[in-house]
């Protein structure tokens, strides 16, 4: 999507058609990033809803120095991180209540019949997982990733290299255990 100043002005003024256009241009990228972070369709749908409501409500705060696509990605990544933090805190609280809930927590774990990489990726540390999702899966550039994650390009590169190595190791281990 090209950064069109007229489009941005219309978006900032609250024009619904422009907002719809921006939504349809960015939805796939944002949804796939969110899904790969949460691994939950229902949660991803809710987060998508929240993110685009936030985007609309904060439209006047947008500065065209960054492409709108990456501004939305940044909002999505931060919102998803917050949701995941809340969720893990909630799980810890439930686990503290007693072991009766253990079964319920275990049943929430996802079952992937198609492919093994995403479940492996989900177990990785967030700081290595996110650059892999953004660079290797969603094909963003280093500059764009640095903008979305609010880190330096050098940090993106080093985290990506480290993350790739970890992913490869875990994948090999998984394949060996599957026989």
């Amino acid at each position, binding site marked *: 999507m090209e950064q069109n100043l007229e489009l941005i002005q219309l978006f900032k003024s609250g024009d619904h058609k422009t907002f719809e256009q921006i*939504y349809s241009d960015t939805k796939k990228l944002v949804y*796939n990033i969110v899904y790969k972070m949460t691994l939950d369709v229902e949660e991803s*749908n809710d987060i998508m*809803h929240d993110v685009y*409501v936030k985007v609309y409500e904060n439209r006047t705060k947008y500065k065209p120095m960054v492409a709108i696509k990456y501004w939305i990605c940044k909002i999505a990544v931060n919102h998803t991180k917050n949701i995941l933090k809340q969720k893990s805190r909630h799980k810890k609280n439930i686990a503290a209540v007693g072991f009766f809930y253990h079964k319920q927590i275990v049943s929430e774990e996802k079952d992937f019949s198609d492919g*093994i990489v995403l479940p492996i990726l989900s177990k990785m540390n967030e700081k290595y997982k996110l650059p892999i999702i953004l660079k290797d899966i969603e094909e963003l550039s280093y500059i764009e990733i640095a903008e979305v994650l609010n880190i330096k390009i050098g940090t993106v590169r080093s985290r990506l290299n480290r993350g*790739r190595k970890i992913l490869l190791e875990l994948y090999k281990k998984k394949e060996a255990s599957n026989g």
Partner: protein
Amino acid sequence: MDKEYEKILQDASLTPREVPAAIYNRVVATINERKNVRHLGFKDLFQVKYLAVAIVFVGVFGASNLYFQNTLSSEELYVSQLYLSDTSDYMISFDSLY
């Protein structure tokens, strides 16, 4: 990127997912819903209901103020009762105590 890693990226679990169509309608519905919730502005304070509440408040406050201004305190009540009795003035004069 080595070939082994490239093979990983071809995994079926990494294929892009389609976005459910219903999300946009939900987003628009929420935006419209929030637009309809009006925030209270300065002009809104002059609505009849708020003016009525203000008048009632001032009325109650004024009436209670008037009531307490015209009601004798316990000391005043005591003195007034003494005056009403047959006690002579000099007997209730506080100056005479000294």
